[in-house]
């Protein structure tokens, strides 16, 4: 019985890894003790207050976040739980949106009451999901992904190019123009015809879907999904009807996507082919993976992060703050010792001053422009070149040099690295102030990408995901 000690040590090593340390520890432990139902209520409460705190533009972002959250938790059912890499998911979103648009606008002159159209659309989406899973039920992984990607593409082609059914005059989808004038949900004589009302409608749907999915997750069906994700063959040997459960996962995911689609039309008073491009599918995946595959709170948090981060970065001041904070954190992480960091900073200012003096000696003050008005601009004064007229040309070369410098820093070792670091950091700041900060629309995408990369490198399991292992 002596090996029980070793065994227990192995079993508890997981706890040791997960034990929270530092200042965040007590807070995390406290949060872990709160039942998840209360957390959901807390989230819904905060979200319900959101429209009172923001302007109309903020409300739009909130609606985008809620749509994305609903899509992400639906996708989580298929990908996170059942482990089926479904790239056709976007088609079900489009199916729901177009179906609702067609029966709630003047497009074909049909106006179904909401209490009829929503159940019909949800059921039809589920059925479509189940049908599309039929040809792909023997496929897994990459092959399933390719097959379902094909479905997504076919859907897009169909709605754009086959707006009329053969032999029928009615224009069903509006082709490339989409369907306009989609009417809002109307229930019990109440019309969801403002952003505000649609926000609360989406919030209600999100809460409802989360509760239903959470119940399923802990049930027989949820267990079977996760079992077939972990090991399909073993699951089959343990009495799991694999094909039926795969079909069910597809159907549930499709139903949620279809339901979400029915709110898109009313929100933007129309549905358009552009809403269902593959890029948006990748955004849904990004939200899900960022939040943590397999976790409902994670999917919601990921959706909120993905919807809001680019909007926050739209403001150059915020973007600049993020850039410099990132730079400082990176320096600390790479250099570790504060003496070295101080040396690099001093070297940076010295190097910058030398460059500035040299530039002013060769040319004259006419090359100078004015610094961007951000909170740090005083600190940069005197040692950073802010170019005027020649900005575009020089900063492009500097951009390429900065990238080369970063590659050099990664490849170099020891003193070479330290020596390369100073001009590289200088170039990075130079490029930021002379180019990137002036083009916020492009820069925010770059920054957003950078944030995602760093996030996933730091926490591969996503914000709220649990680490999965694949050891045998």
């Amino acid at each position, binding site marked *: 019985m002596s090996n029980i000690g070793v*065994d227990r040590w192995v079993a508890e090593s997981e706890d040791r890894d997960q034990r929270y340390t530092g200042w965040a520890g007590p807070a995390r432990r406290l949060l872990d003790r709160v039942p998840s139902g209360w957390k959901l209520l807390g989230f819904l409460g905060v979200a319900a207050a959101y429209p009172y705190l923001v302007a109309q533009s903020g409300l739009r972002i909130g609606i985008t976040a809620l749509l994305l959250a609903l899509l992400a938790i639906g996708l989580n059912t298929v990908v996170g739980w059942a482990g089926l890499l479904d790239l056709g998911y976007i088609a079900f979103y489009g199916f729901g949106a177009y179906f609702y648009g067609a029966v709630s606008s003047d497009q074909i002159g049909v106006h179904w009451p909401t209490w009829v159209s929503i159940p019909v659309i949800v059921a039809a989406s589920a059925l479509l999901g189940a049908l599309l899973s039929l040809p792909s039920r023997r496929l897994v992984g990459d092959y399933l992904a390719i097959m379902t990607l094909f479905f997504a593409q076919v859907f897009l082609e169909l709605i754009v190019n086959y707006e009329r059914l053969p032999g029928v005059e009615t224009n069903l989808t509006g082709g490339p123009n989409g369907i306009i004038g989609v009417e809002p949900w109307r229930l019990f004589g109440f019309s969801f015809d403002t952003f505000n009302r649609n926000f609360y409608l989406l919030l209600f749907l999100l809460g409802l879907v989360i509760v239903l999915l959470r119940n399923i997750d802990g049930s027989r069906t*949820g267990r079977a999904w996760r*079992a077939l994700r972990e090991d399909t*063959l073993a699951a*089959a040997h343990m*009495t799991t009807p694999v094909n039926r459960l795969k079909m069910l996962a597809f159907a549930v995911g499709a139903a949620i996507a279809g339901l979400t689609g029915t709110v898109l039309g009313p929100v933007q008073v129309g549905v358009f082919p552009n809403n269902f491009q593959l890029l948006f599918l990748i955004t849904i995946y990004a939200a899900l993976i960022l939040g943590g595959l397999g976790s409902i709170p994670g999917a919601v948090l990921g959706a909120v992060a993905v919807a809001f981060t680019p909007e926050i970065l739209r403001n150059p001041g915020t973007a600049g703050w993020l850039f410099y904070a990132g730079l400082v954190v990176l320096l600390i992480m790479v250099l570790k010792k504060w003496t070295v960091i101080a040396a690099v900073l001093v070297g940076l200012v010295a190097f910058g001053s030398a460059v500035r003096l040299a530039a002013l000696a060769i040319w004259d003050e006419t090359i100078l422009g004015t610094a961007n008005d951000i909170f740090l601009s005083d600190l940069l004064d005197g040692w950073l070149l802010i170019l005027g007229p020649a900005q575009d040309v020089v900063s492009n070369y500097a951009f390429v040099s900065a990238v080369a410098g970063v590659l050099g820093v990664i490849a170099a070792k020891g003193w070479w690295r330290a020596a390369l670091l100073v001009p590289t950091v200088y170039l990075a700041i130079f490029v930021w102030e002379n180019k990137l900060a002036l083009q916020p629309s492009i820069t925010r995408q770059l920054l957003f990408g950078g944030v995602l990369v760093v996030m996933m490198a730091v926490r591969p399991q996503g914000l709220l995901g649990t680490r999965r*292992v694949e050891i*045998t």
Partner: protein
Amino acid sequence: MTMPILEISGLSKAFGGLKVIQNLDLTVAPGEVVSVIGPNGAGKTTLFNMISGIYQPDAGEILFDRGSIVGATPEEIANRGIARTFQTLRLFLNMTVRENVMAATYGATKTRMWQSALRTPMARREQEEVKRLAEEKLAFFGDRLVGYRWDQPAYSLSYANRRRLEIARAMATNPHLLMLDEPAAGMNPAETLEITGLIGRLRDEAGFAILVIEHDMHVVEGVSDRVIALDHGVKIAEGSFEAVAEDPAVIEAYLGYGAANTR
């Protein structure tokens, strides 16, 4: 003699030109432990894979509870009462220990997804039953898989405990026949001894008929009511452990031609 629970006759399987199983006859009676031994590549695991429905035999018949199971899917066969473990462990690693066992009750439970979603009284009752059943199966292993481990992920278990969990999971499908593929592989002598006792308890206390593949002759000697030796897919000996162990064909299969005469 009682009616055999598993009755295999004339079973053959070839992968291309390689005849893995040739014209094999095999029976297992209720409450009997039958061991299948043989060198690596003798076709033991292929035999298991045919019984559990992964492979279809080229020829021959497999009768279980007097009904043919040839052509049935693994899921159907599991539902009819044959459970197995795997030589290379195939647990649901990222699920908890208890969930691993609970997942094996899918075929025996009835709750529909919509009932689970709405948490109807029937769904809640069945969930409790399944939970209790899983804990009961885990309790069979005494302090090896005790309560504090039930909510830990399966990957946190040691190798020996993973083997035990696989057996517990197989038990949860409520089988009549339990097929164990090398249950003592990778275990130390103390654990091997424990497995020997465990297989005896599985037969005596839980009442399973057991078909077991095992390389460790101490285990085979300790548990077997009957031993079947395979070599290159052909049954070369059958009988009590002593008879099979003394059989010249078996000794030759393990040690090479002529080895039987030098003993």
